[in-house]
Structure formats: C-alpha cells, structure tokens
C-alpha cells in the first residue's frame, strides 16, 4: 500500500512528511474510541515510523501487504507485519533498541520491496 502526502499544511513539518512525496504504509492503527485512523509512515529522518493521521494522504496503490496481520488490542485495531505488532516492539524501536532497529530495517525493507511496481 502506498500513499501520497496531499497536505501542505503546517502538520507536515510536525509529522516530518513532505508534500507530494509517496510513502509505503508500514501499518495502520485505528482507535475505536476516538474514531481516528493513523497510517504508519517512515518519517523523513527514516529512523522509525510515526503514526500519522490518514487525512493527510491519498492512496496511490491500494494493494495491501501480504505480510500484514490484524490484531485487536483493547479499543485499538492494528494492521501491520507480525514483527511490528509484537508486545513492546514499538517501545523498543522508538528507544532505538539495537534488536528492534534491526528488525525494523529488515521488515520495512521487505514491505518497501513488495510495494515497488513490477517490471516486465
């Protein structure tokens, strides 16, 4: 799944995304209570992904990843690679824990390769 940043609003700076740039979606989280959906986007520094409100994007490739699974966690619905949904993985990744960073690089690379257009 790929999206393109539509918004040229001030939120772009806050969310570290660039208008008109395409991003591979690494996961989706939906909070049932708040009715807010976030796309997990590797931000421009590229060290981890940031859950970013979906209304800042348009979908350019709707095909979902074959690596994704669904998890329901309390009032949250999470869709992403199994490794990213492991308990405390996101805590470790944002702490730049060596093991989590290695998993992030390996899995996000697989997701990005999968999202590349096929060449004949």
């Amino acid at each position, binding site marked *: 799944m790929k999206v393109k940043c539509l918004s040229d609003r001030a939120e772009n700076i806050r969310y570290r995304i660039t208008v008109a740039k395409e991003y591979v979606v690494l996961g989706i989280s939906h909070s049932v209570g708040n009715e*807010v959906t976030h796309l997990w986007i590797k931000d421009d520094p590229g060290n*981890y992904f940031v859950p970013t409100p979906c209304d800042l994007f348009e979908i350019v490739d709707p095909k979902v990843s074959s690596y994704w699974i669904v998890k329901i966690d309390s009032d*949250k619905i999470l869709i992403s690679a199994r490794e990213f949904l492991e308990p405390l993985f996101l805590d470790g990744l*944002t*702490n730049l*824990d060596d093991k989590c960073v290695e998993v992030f690089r390996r899995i996000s690379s697989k997701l990005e390769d999968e999202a590349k257009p096929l060449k004949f």
Partner: protein
Amino acid sequence: MGLASCGLFDCPSLPQAGVDALAGLGDAALGMFFLNGQKIRNALHISGGANQCSADYKGGQAAGFIGGFATGAGELELLNVSLASEAQLAQVVAGEGLPILGAGTGTALGDAARLEAEYGGSAADWAKVTSESYTGSSGLQFEIHAFQNAIIDAVVEAKTVITKW
C-alpha cells in the same frame, strides 16, 4: 542499548564512555549560555544518565570549554548543536512534541502504567513524544524524546536520543 544505560543521551551502539563524554560536552555547551544541564535534567525529572565522575565526562566537559574559546568550524557546530538542543527541549516542554507512541497514535505505550503510578493521570492519556530532528554539519542527528500527558499538563523524563552518529 537500553535507555537506562544511557540516560540523557541515548544512541545506538554508543559505549558508556562516549555517552559520558557527550554529556560533558553538552553540559559545557549549555554552560556557554549560562544554563546548567544538570538543573534542566532535574527539572524534567530525568533519572540516571551520564556518570559525571568519569574521566570521559570530564574530558568531554573540558573539550566543550576549550571549544568555547577556540575558533573554527568545531565551535560553530557546538553552538548550533547547543541552540538546536535548547529549541528541541523548549518545543517538548511546551507540549508541542509529536506523539509517536501511546495516546493520540492508536498504539499502546509500554510505560503507561508506570507513568500513571509515578506521575498521576490516566495510563491511557500518556504518550511518548519527540521534538523535531536536528542534523548537524558533521552528520550527527538527534532529537529529544519525553513522555507527555496533555490532560494533566505534564512532560517528564525528557532525554536526547542520538539517531545518527
């Protein structure tokens, strides 16, 4: 490398000696602006961190002071790093950090229950936030992470995270 081992400066694969030296350098840089790095850490309830007694911390502190009197690109970089760090801290303390985990992101924060017990509020309202990222001319890239609860207007446990070295 976990957070507890690095404290103020958290960075991938950086030995404690490097952390101590960096902390000394950072505190020296803050001293150039009549600020005190330890006071800032205390105000933000930052626990753990650099070993100020270590030779590496003192070496870094000395390098910072020497850099303060020296001229050249190193001094400019030190100045830019210091200014960027202050701006990042101000952004996070003002509650303008970007939520990256927990409240407002649709994801779970592993530290939420501990934060509720230590600082109050509801576990569901705690988020990990980050400042904007800064990249220096040397390639050093860092940002400040903290835990924020917007409901009780609290920002705690801020620390600099070095993302590229």
